[in-house]
Every structure is written in C-alpha cells, then in structure tokens.
C-alpha cells in the first residue's frame, strides 16, 4: 500500500533560501490491511512524510509509492483518504454541505452521496444536529470528526490520518479509535500519526518511530519493546546488602526490592537467594513502553 525507500526532503526558507533537511532517508513499508502507527516528537518529520504521501509536498530523492503509484501522479489519490492535522474547512458551509462538496469530488452523487454521508457520520458518531450548522461555529472535536468523515466518503483502500485524535475529548478519542478499528475490519489500510502513544499501542499492527527525520524503530509494538530488553522487579522477604548484589542487579529504592537489568541478572539474583535461603516474595517483569523508548531515542538524538 505504501512503499517509501530512502526518502529525502529539504525545506528552503528565508530570503537566502536556507535549507533544512527534514527527512534524512526515511524507509518503511505499509502492507495492505494494516493499522500502521507513525510516532515521533514534534518536528521529527511525521507531517512532512504524510504530505509527501498525499502529493502535497514534492521531494528530492528516494522512492515513494502509494497504491503502487508515485504521489506525483493524481491516480495515487484515487483510492486514498486523507485528513490533515487540525483540519480547516470552508467555514461558510455547513458540515453536510462540506461533505457533499468533497463527496462530489470523489465521484459520488445523488442518493449514493447522501447515504455515504450518513454512513460516515454514523461511524464517527457525528450524526447530530450540529452537522447542519455552519462550520465556523464548530468546536475542534466537531471539526476533527468532519475531517475524518470527508476522508472516508470515497471508501478509500488507504486512509492516511494526521493526528486524528488531537483535540478530542476521551469520548471522541474512543469514537475515533473504534472507527479506525471498524474501517480496518472492513479492509481499509490505515496509516496514521499520533502523539497519544497509549492509543497507538492499543490499535496498531505495526509502528514506525521517527526522530529527527530518521526512522529509528519499526515493527510491531511487541517487537519494538522486546528489542529494548525486559527488566525484572524482584521483592525478597529479607534485605540484601547492596555490596552483596550480583552483577546487573540494583536496588530499587528499598532494601528488599531489586531491579534486574536482563534475564541473566535475574538468574544470578535468584541463584543468590537460593544459595542464601532468602525467600522471593514477588517477581514481575516490565517492558519499556513506546513512550519510554521514544523518550530515550529523543535524548539520544539530542546528544
């Protein structure tokens, strides 16, 4: 559905056309049927990548294919739906008029257009009175729902959403999450960016992490978190002196609680406890979250 190989994009700004490399060789693939999360800090290149995919930005080098076609070709957008970050629309139209306008642009008309609008609004729980009000009176959340609704009117095979959950209250976030899952069940491939990492973890089949214009991690959430190792937290019945602790084991703020950096350190601690008759009260493992990994990657990039 999406193929990006070594994508580079430079922005030029100011009178002297000072250049800034925004994407430094981005590569990843999105297979059909996936929900693919795209995460990274502000300014990392998420929106730039998305705008290249939707044909809104040109790029200098690399290979980009959307639905098998270059985004420079209008055909790449035939089966594509896109909702930008903080969507802005013609505020002199009502929500329904706006959807009619976009629906016509994707080839819908008459009864089919109206039923497709009703379907999209129902999916996003936006089939309320406010849809017939002028857009200038809409809240951020209403605008976001209308933005996603317009992107799915053409029943796209690929849906690209830039921060679809920003500006939404918890109910709105849940609605959008459910809509994404429902669309994916219906066969739509979804590529979306988000800062809400808990949502990304819960609904994405695969995730790419971009920091400073480069993809630093890619894979399923499990693959990414496992690749960073698993920590073990152990609590014993008796205290152990810090000096006696085996290699790779450290105190976790309490003389009976320890953190083992990896499997080997865990085994060494358990062996030490057995040898010294110290009972283990509790042991659990903790994987780093996407947030932990992202924070670590940002710190590494800054360094």
């Amino acid at each position: 559905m999406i193929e990006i190989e070594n994508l580079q994009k430079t922005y030029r700004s100011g009178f002297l056309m000072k250049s800034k490399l925004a994407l430094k060789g981005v590569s990843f693939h999105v297979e059909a049927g996936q929900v693919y999360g795209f995460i990274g800090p502000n300014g990392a290149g998420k929106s730039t990548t998305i705008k290249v995919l939707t044909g809104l930005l040109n790029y200098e080098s690399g290979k980009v294919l959307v639905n098998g076609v270059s985004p420079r070709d209008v055909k790449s957008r035939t089966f594509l739906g896109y909702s930008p970050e903080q969507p802005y629309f013609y505020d002199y139209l009502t929500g329904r008029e706006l959807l009619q306008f976009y629906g016509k642009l994707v080839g819908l008309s008459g009864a089919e257009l109206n039923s497709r609008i009703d379907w999209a609004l129902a999916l996003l729980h936006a089939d309320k009175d406010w849809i017939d009000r002028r857009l200038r009176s809409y809240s951020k959340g209403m605008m976001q729902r209308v933005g996603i609704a317009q992107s799915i009117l053409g029943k796209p095979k690929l849906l690209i959403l830039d921060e679809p959950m920003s500006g939404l209250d918890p109910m709105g976030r849940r609605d959008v999450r459910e809509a994404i899952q429902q669309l994916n069940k219906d066969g739509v491939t979804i590529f979306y960016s988000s800062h809400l990492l808990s949502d990304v973890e819960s609904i994405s089949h695969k995730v790419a992490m971009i920091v400073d214009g480069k993809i630093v991690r890619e894979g399923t959430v499990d693959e990414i978190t496992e690749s960073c190792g698993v920590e073990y937290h152990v609590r014993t019945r008796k205290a152990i002196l810090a000096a006696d602790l085996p290699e790779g084991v450290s105190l976790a703020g309490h003389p009976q609680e320890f953190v083992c950096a990896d499997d080997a350190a865990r085994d060494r601690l358990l062996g030490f406890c057995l040898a010294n008759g110290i009972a283990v009260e509790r042991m659990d493992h903790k994987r780093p979250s996407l947030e932990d990994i992202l924070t670590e990657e940002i710190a590494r990039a800054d360094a």
Partner: protein
Amino acid sequence: MQTLKHIGIIALNTFRESIRDKILYNIVFLAIALTLFSIVLGEWSVFDRAYVIKSTTLSVMSLSGLLISIFVGISLVQKEIQRRTVLTLLSKPISRASFIVGKYFGLLAVVAVHLAILTIIYYLMLAVTGADPTLSLLTAIYLIFCEMAVVIAVALLFSSFSSTVLSALFTLGVYFAGHLSNQLLEQVRFASRMGEMGGTSSALFEKAAVVIHAVFPGLYRYNVTSYVVHGVALPDMYLFWNSVYALGYVGVFLAIASWWFSRRDFL
C-alpha cells in the same frame, strides 16, 4: 470528462464562496450606486445627458469588474493556502490544474453575474431617462467581460506564487501596462520621429516599448466605449478576433499558473 467535472465542482464552490464575500457586496452596491448617480451627472454635465449616462455607466462596469477580479480573485487561491483548506482539496484525486481552472471559472461566473446585474440596471435606466438604449452597447459590455477574463487569469497567475498584496500590485501593474502599452509605443515612436531622443536611447526606448506592447495583454482593445456611445461601427470581426486574443492570453496565463502551482509545496 472527470477533469471537467472536477473543474465544475470547484467553480461552483468558488462561486458560492465569492457570493458570500462581503467585499463583493461592497463593490456591487457601490457600482449600482455610481450607475444611478450617472443620471445626476448627466443632468449636471454640459455634455449630452445620454452620452454621460452611457459612458459613465460603462466605466463603472469596467472599474467594478476590475475591483472584483483583483480583490476577490487574488484572495481566492491565497485564502485556500492560508486557511489550509487546500490540503484536503488537493489530497482528492484532482489535478492542481483543475483547481486553478475551477477557481478561474468560478470567479468568471461571479463577474458575469455582476455585469449582468449592472446591464439590466443600465438598460432600465436608459429606458426610463429616454437615453436611447441601443443593443450596440452590449458590444462594449461583452468586451469589458473579455477584459475581465484576462485580468482574472493574471490575478490567479500572480496569486499562485506570491502574497496577496504583491499579487494585487502586480495585477494592477499588468492592467495599467495593458491599457497604456499602445500609447507608450506611439509616444516613443512619435518622439523618435520628432528627434526628441538621441540615437541610442531612442532605439533602446523603442525596443522596450515594443517588448512591453508585445508581452503585456493589450487591454486597450477592450475599451470601445467612445465607439458604441457615439454609434461608430467597430471594424468587421473585431469582437471575434479580440475574443480569440483574450482566450489566448487566458490560456497562457492559466497554463503558467497551473504549472507554477503544481510545483508548490503545501505545508
């Protein structure tokens, strides 16, 4: 076929956007007021009353059409970019050329409606004041429409790559150059013939005047007010060839605007 459909949808939306624009109403009402005021001018003037009403109203049509073409025209594309509505629109399977052409036809329709309203008022006014409402006046109005068709294309061309203020200035520049290029060429040649300029500078000025005359659209061709008001016949095929001339310029300007617009990045 699909492209034409897209152009039609964008044109219709542009028309709807424009007719909800306050600037448009201000210009239309001002034009209507000035048109009606021409009756008073006719009474005050030392010239023939019918002549004053006819020529003043045609000038009002031309001026108000120009104001709409420039001030509504240049904001059409810029507003889409500044309000970021262009992001959603261009992510649909439509080409950037369709977007530019659709915007063009939308505004052209607004100007056409504006001129139609003024034409109706014009003829009513001529009938009421007994100022000989001949059909030949429609020729002048049609040519004003052709002129505006070119001006809108110029406005869209500039707004496809520069800011609102610069686009307005550039478009006004082209408008004045287009109206004065003929006179400039004549004056330079006249001065040269009369020996008022030296050899090198004369040749240089003449070349510059020829270039300006050749490059800028000759908008002076569309001002036939004095002909129609005095009932002087226009040359044969005048309307046809000047329509073709306008179409040629519109085609070139829209092609350049589309090409430039398709190279733009939208952040």
